[in-house]
């Protein structure tokens, strides 16, 4: 099997030949705050940049810029200097530091000096770029690609949509550091002669202000989910297309996009490994994805998607962890098969993020759980961390932790919900209790203690419990004076007897002795035993009884 050889649509200029003589210096390549940026400027910047890199003998160059124009100039300078472009997954300082060993230079803006280099056309097959993605074990995986692969992807996109887009200006709200932004905001526009906006737009109001003449927009699902309240754009100013990728757009958001911006979003399915492989206009719930021309899809055991595509190296097959059901010409997506989740359209390795959370100096143990749309972090703090939490208050402490992680993770891919717990819940097998973790994320004020161990006996069971300070029953108390109400202690005893001893009867009477108050963050042992229609219970802390009694069951 071989991928069909794409025929370049007549208007498409390979990036490799962009700077070669023939095109006029005055050709507009991009715009920045209303100013045109021309091919002539790009030629000068690339010639100076390539000369600078050549003089330093750079072989591998890490690229991280705020501005998409700067990125294009740097990328072309690197390739013209015969070096490999290394693209970090984000431009956070910690990520760049971690990748420093992968490159001999970091460029954050186009370099330049007096030494320039004549710009011979590039050979696309010999231009190398390295991307990164997070693997399922949380490790960072290198993905080498050639410029020829990226150009083949653009060729397919232009075949499908080029005629409709003409010379539209390209606006964006996604980073060019990701493959989706790089391809859709930068490479495709440049190759097709569509001027791209060098700056990302800060908010919808700013993007809408730039909608005049033919335009298209490249945005994230997170943006599309936050259109509410926007004034409908007059029909004459609607963009010709809105491209998005990263995660399925909720149907309601797709419809709102059509109502307010005049077009259904064109959703792109893909990954850093594969580039774009499928697309859809979501007309109804769960509209299937259509394979892009030249993409061949198959499923292997477990319904996991295998992909061949002109975007890949010849003969390469990507075995993805995407669960799908094939449909004529495409597939329905049924979720990931590993611990990679999508948060606001960003791929997050729960394994990697948990490890980074646990490595923070304030944190003793960390777990992540997803409940609904929210990614939640569940943390057990060291005593120093607890003291810092008490001093700063929860919000500022959370943001402090977020900032510590912002060195290596993008803000939108970080937990938005934080829970500080005395211990992490474990299931009867001694493994992290996923359902209990999810419940703790979903509920800011839990009503039950966290089970950290469970020891079954004969008609009896012993549980280790950690009492969260955020417990519903402690709210409204002054700090330091909160105690666990006796009725809650009885309720928990009965609830655990139902779960673990199969008790179905109702308690009819109780004899209870409360000896010591139970307070936030206490670690307790609850013993339950059934005998002669009665449930005996006791809560102990450090071997001392806090309360005990018997409940008659009927």
């Amino acid at each position: 099997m071989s991928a069909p050889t794409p025929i370049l649509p007549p208007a498409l200029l390979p990036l490799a030949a962009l700077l070669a003589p023939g095109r006029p210096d005055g050709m507009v390549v991009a715009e920045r705050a209303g100013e045109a940026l021309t091919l002539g400027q790009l030629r000068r910047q690339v010639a100076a940049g390539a000369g600078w890199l050549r003089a330093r003998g750079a072989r591998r160059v890490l690229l991280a810029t705020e501005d998409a124009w700067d990125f294009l100039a740097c990328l072309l300078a690197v390739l013209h200097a015969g070096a490999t472009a290394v693209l970090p997954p984000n431009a956070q300082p910690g990520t760049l530091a971690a990748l420093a060993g992968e490159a001999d230079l970091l460029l954050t803006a186009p370099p330049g000096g007096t030494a320039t280099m004549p710009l011979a056309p590039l050979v696309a097959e010999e231009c190398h770029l390295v991307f990164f993605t997070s693997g399922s074990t949380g490790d960072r995986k290198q993905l080498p690609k050639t410029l020829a692969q990226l150009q083949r992807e653009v060729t397919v996109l232009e075949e499908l949509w080029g005629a409709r887009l003409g010379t539209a200006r390209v606006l964006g709200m996604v980073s060019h550091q990701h493959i989706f932004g790089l391809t859709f905001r930068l490479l495709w526009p440049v190759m097709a002669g569509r001027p791209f906006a060098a700056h990302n737009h800060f908010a919808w109001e700013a993007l809408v202000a730039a909608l005049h003449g033919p335009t298209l927009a490249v945005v994230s699902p997170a943006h599309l989910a936050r259109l509410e309240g926007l004034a409908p754009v007059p029909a004459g100013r609607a963009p010709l297309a809105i491209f998005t990728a990263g995660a399925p757009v909720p149907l309601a958001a797709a419809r709102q996009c059509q109502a307010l911006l005049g077009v259904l979003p064109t959703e792109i399915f893909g990954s850093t490994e594969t580039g774009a492989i499928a697309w859809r206009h979501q007309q109804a719930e769960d509209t299937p994805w259509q394979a892009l021309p030249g993409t061949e899809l198959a499923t292997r055991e477990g319904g996991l998607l295998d992909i061949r595509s002109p975007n890949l190296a010849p003969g390469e097959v990507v075995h993805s962890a995407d669960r799908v059901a094939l449909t004529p010409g495409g597939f329905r997506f049924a979720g990931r098969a590993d611990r990679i989740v999508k948060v606001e359209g960003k791929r997050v390795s729960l394994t990697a993020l948990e490890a980074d959370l646990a490595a923070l100096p304030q944190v003793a143990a960390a777990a992540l759980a997803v409940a609904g749309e929210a990614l939640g972090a569940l943390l057990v703090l060291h005593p120093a961390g607890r003291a810092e939490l008490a001093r700063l208050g929860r919000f500022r402490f959370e943001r402090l932790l977020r900032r510590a992680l912002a060195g290596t993770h993008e803000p939108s891919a970080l937990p938005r919900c934080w829970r500080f717990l005395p211990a992490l819940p474990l299931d009867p097998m001694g493994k992290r209790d996923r359902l209990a973790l999810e419940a703790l994320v979903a509920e800011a004020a839990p009503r039950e203690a966290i089970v950290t161990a469970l020891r079954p006996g004969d008609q009896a069971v012993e549980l280790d419990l950690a009492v969260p300070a955020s417990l519903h029953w402690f709210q409204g108390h002054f700090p330091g004076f909160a105690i666990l109400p006796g009725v809650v202690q009885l309720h928990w005893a009965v609830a655990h007897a139902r779960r673990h001893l199969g008790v179905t009867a109702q308690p009819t009477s109780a004899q209870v002795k409360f000896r010591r108050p139970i307070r936030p963050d206490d670690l307790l042992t609850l013993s339950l035993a059934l005998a002669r229609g009665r449930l005996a219970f006791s809560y102990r802390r450090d071997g001392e009884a806090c309360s005990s009694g018997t409940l008659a069951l009927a």
Partner: protein
Amino acid sequence: MSELEAEIKRLIVTALKLEDLAPEDIGTEEPLFGDGLGLDSIDGLELGIALRKTYGLKIETANEELRQHFATVAALARFVAANRGVA
């Protein structure tokens, strides 16, 4: 501090569901994004929705200018006062 500034602080806390942050803990001149309060781009989008819904803001503003208007509670209050419509 004006009533509108206090109102915007309350709006930030409720719209962004900032558990355990009191509106009065937000400084009127404190940068809302980055190293100040620490809001991020998603918070910015959520805040945009809340401002549109609460104050009927129907505005189109060039990118850099809009960024300035969102810089602090004080700047947002001036922006809202000048542009508020009928919610």
